[in-house]
C-alpha cells in the first residue's frame, strides 16, 4: 500500500491486559463442565482469537460478549468442533473436543441454540420440540422433557399445533431454546439470541434464559448485547479483537469503563 502522510489522527492502542482478579472461579465448584484453555484460533494465515481462557462451571450462566468481529463466533466454532485450536485446548466434561459434525456435538450433550434460530418452519411447535429429543437417550424422556419445556414457556403450549413460521420472533426463540432443552444437555450454548428482535422481545428472551438457568443447567451465552447479559448472567467475559479484556462477576462489571472502550473503541 502506498504510504501517505497523514495528520496524526492515529491513536496508539492501549494495552488491555486482562485483570484476572475478582470473580475468579472458586475452587470449591469442582471441575468446569467447559474449559477453554488459552486457545489460539484462526483461518489460513489469519489469527482471530489469541490466548483466550474461559470456564463454565455447573449451574452457571456465563456471558461471552464483544462487538462484531471480536472473535465470539470463532470461539463457538471451536467449541463445536468445526475448527481446531492452533494452540491451547478445549475440554468438555474433562474430554478434549475433537473435530466433527454438529450432530456429534449433540451426541456429546452440548445443545446449541444457533444464531438465527434454525427452526423447521413448516412443522408445528410440538414437532419442532419433539425433534429436539431425536437421539435415543433423550427420546426415552421425551414426554417429561416436553412437559418441562411447556412448564417453562406456557405460551408455547397454547401454540403447540401452530407451524413455527407463524410465530413471532420472540416465540420462535423460545422454541429454539425449548428444542435445545429437549436434548437434556449437559451444557447449553446460545449464539446471539437477541439478534433481530425488537427491544420488548429481547427482554422477554433474556428472562426466559434466566429461567432456564435457574433450573441448574450451565449456560454459555454469547451476545453482543452487553447490558442485558450483565443483568442476567453470573459471570461475564468481554472480548475485543480476539483477546479477553475484562472478566468477572457480572454485577462488578456493570458500568465498567473497559467494556465501553471495548465496544466504542474510545
Amino acid at each position, binding site marked *: 500500500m502506498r504510504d501517505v502522510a497523514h495528520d496524526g489522527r492515529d491513536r496508539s492502542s492501549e494495552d488491555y491486559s486482562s485483570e484476572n482478579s475478582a470473580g475468579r472461579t472458586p475452587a470449591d465448584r469442582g471441575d468446569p463442565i467447559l474449559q477453554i484453555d488459552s486457545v489460539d484460533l484462526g483461518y489460513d494465515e489469519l489469527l482471530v482469537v489469541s490466548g483466550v481462557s474461559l470456564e463454565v462451571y455447573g449451574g452457571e450462566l456465563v456471558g461471552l460478549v464483544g462487538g462484531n468481529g471480536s472473535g465470539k463466533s470463532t470461539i463457538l466454532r471451536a467449541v463445536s468442533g468445526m475448527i481446531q485450536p492452533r494452540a491451547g485446548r478445549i475440554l468438555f466434561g474433562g474430554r478434549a473436543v475433537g473435530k466433527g*459434525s*454438529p*450432530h456429534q*456435538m*449433540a*451426541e456429546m450433550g452440548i*445443545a*446449541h441454540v*444457533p444464531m*438465527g*434460530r*434454525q*427452526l*423447521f*418452519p*413448516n*412443522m408445528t411447535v410440538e*414437532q419442532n420440540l*419433539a*425433534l*429436539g429429543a*431425536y*437421539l435415543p437417550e433423550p*427420546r426415552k424422556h421425551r414426554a417429561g422433557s416436553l412437559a418441562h419445556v411447556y412448564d417453562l414457556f406456557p405460551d408455547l403450549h397454547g401454540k403447540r399445533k401452530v407451524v*413455527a*413460521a407463524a410465530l413471532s420472533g420472540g416465540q*420462535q426463540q423460545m422454541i429454539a431454546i425449548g*428444542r*435445545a432443552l*429437549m*436434548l437434556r444437555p449437559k451444557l447449553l450454548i446460545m449464539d446471539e439470541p437477541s439478534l433481530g428482535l425488537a427491544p420488548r422481545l429481547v427482554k422477554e428472551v433474556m428472562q426466559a434464559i434466566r429461567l432456564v438457568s435457574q433450573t441448574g443447567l450451565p449456560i454459555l451465552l454469547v451476545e453482543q448485547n452487553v447490558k442485558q447479559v450483565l443483568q442476567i448472567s453470573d459471570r461475564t467475559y468481554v472480548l475485543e479483537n480476539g483477546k479477553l479484556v475484562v472478566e468477572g462477576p457480572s454485577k462488578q462489571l456493570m458500568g465498567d469503563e473497559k467494556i465501553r472502550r471495548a465496544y466504542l473503541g474510545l
Partner: protein
Amino acid sequence: MRIINFSHGDFVVIGMYTAIVLYTQLGWDPLLSLLVALPLGFLLGVVLERLILSRLVDVPEGSTLLATLGLSLVVQNTLMLSFGASPRSLNVAYGSATVNLGPMTLSVIQLVAGGIVLVVIAGLYLFLNYTERGQAVRATSQNRLGAELVGINTRSVHSLVFGVGVALSVAAGIILIPQLFVTPVITGPVFTLKAFVVTVLGGLGNVWGAIGGGLLLGVVEVLGAAYISFDYRDAYGLVAFLLILLLRPEGLFGRTVKRV
C-alpha cells in the same frame, strides 16, 4: 433434498427389465419381483448416493445434475448392451382380464397398479409424519443446520432419501411393465421428464404437491389431447412446466419456503 436427479426415469426402466428377466427366466410374477426389488433398489440407491452424490456436497449445484446425467447414460447404455434396442414388454396371464364396475370397465392390472400407488402414498405419508426417521427427513429438508443441531446425521438422511427414491422408481417400473413397452434409451428420459414436470407443477419437497402435480399433469394431457390436438399430448405438460417455472417457481401448491 433439492437434488435434480437425471437418472430417475432410468431406475424405472431398471425395474421394468428386472420384472421381465425374473418373469421369463424364473417365472416370477411381477408382484413377487416387487418384494425382492424394493430392498435391492433401496440398497442400490444408498450405494450410489454414498459413492457419487455425497461427494458432490461443496460443489456448484450443476455438478449433481451432471453426475446424475452421467449415471443415466451409464444405466441406459448398459441396458442397451445387455438387452438390445428393441422394445420389450411383459405379458402376464391376467394381462387382459377386466373387471366391470358399474358403467366402467377397468383392467385388473390397472386396478392393481392403482392400489399399489395408493399403498405407497399412504406408506410415505405415514413414514414422513409418524416415524422418527420420517420426521428427521422432513427436518433435514426444511433446515439442514437445525437438523444437525438436534443430533440428526443429515448425510445418512440424504442416503436414505435417495435409496427410497430409487426403490420406488424401480417399483413403479415393475408395476407398469405389463401395460407398457420399454426400450433401454428412450423410456428413461420420458419418465425423468414427466417426473420433473410433476414436481415442478406441485412444488419441490412436498409430497402432497407431488400428488397434486401428478394428477394435474394427467388432466392437462388428457384435456389438451381431447380439445386441442392429440398429437401434442406430450407437449402440454411441458408447456405447463415452463409456465410454472417462469411464473411461479415454488410450484402451484408449494409454500414459499420461509427461513426461520
